[in-house]
């Protein structure tokens, strides 16, 4: 790893962390949802500032190289994230559908009641 690359990595991960924290400060995101991103960006900072940590875990796990370990770890984290988001979207879609249906049915019922009164 060249010195420049390392600088870039550190900068990027720090900027990401600051940005995520800023978003949370200004309440653009629910805290529950932001926890993942705070941890993720902090993980990036740790790996960029102390690459030895990644090297150590890599040798512990037994991956061929540290790069492989990092790629595998990131892909795994992101895949799980995508999966859980997919579940979330399904739930949201269902709720929206239920709301739309309820709205339409209640409106119809209200009209019917009105007609009965007349």
């Amino acid at each position: 790893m060249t010195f420049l690359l390392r600088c870039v990595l550190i900068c990027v991960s720090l900027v990401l962390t600051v940005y995520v924290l800023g978003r949370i400060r200004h309440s653009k995101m629910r805290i529950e949802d932001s926890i993942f991103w705070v941890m993720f960006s902090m993980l990036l900072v740790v790996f960029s500032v102390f690459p030895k940590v990644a090297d150590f875990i890599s040798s512990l796990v037994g991956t061929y190289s540290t790069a492989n370990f990092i790629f595998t770890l990131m892909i795994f984290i992101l895949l799980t994230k995508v999966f859980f988001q997919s579940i979330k979207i399904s739930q949201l879609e269902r709720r929206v559908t239920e709301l739309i249906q309820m709205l339409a049915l209640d409106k119809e019922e209200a009209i019917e009641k009105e007609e009965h009164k007349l």
Partner: protein
Amino acid sequence: MTDRVLVVIPAYNEALNIERVVGEVIENYPMYDYVIINDGSTDNTAKICRKHGWKIIDLPMNLGLAGAFQTGLKYAHRKGYGYAIQFDGDGQHRPEFILPMKEKMDQGYDIVIGSRFVTEKKPRSLRMLGSRLLSGAIWFTTGVKVNDPTSGMRMFSRKMIKEFADGLNYGPEPDTISYLIRHGARVGEIPVIMDERILGESYLNPLNAAKYMGKMLFSILLVQSFRIRDRR
């Protein structure tokens, strides 16, 4: 209400057909109640229905066929109907077959399908290959022979209405049929004649049809087998 039939007519941009289709049901078959589910149409489907004073439920947004049909069954459930039939707003289904379907249902079935191929042979076209594959998949997973799984003309009993009204993943599609058979629903078929779509375009182009087939086969053969039935 328990012996009343509700004709659920989902309509999405059917301004060209709706007048004829619904008009026929209302005029010639006053013994059935009906409800039009306007699935957020962008043309004047709703306007036409309002003009005639027809019973219409307006979905403020487009939900797709499954969502629209479910709305109809929720309505049936609220009102306590004993039978609900899915009836396309594009003129393919003929209302004269509603009565025989109801009679068939009274013989103890939960779902009655208006089938094009009970007596008639399936023509050997690509589309019918799809139909055969689905029939085969349902037979393979449930042991029940459904001749026309893709027929959109289906009647549901009171028990099924409740299940469809509350459930998630209860689209009016073959995979739901297979799932319900697997959980003890009795499915009957009666022969019906269907017309070609009168006016307007069907969304069923070859690519969509292939996608639909793939989705259904995958769903019937794999996904439905580990679904847990939620009882409420």
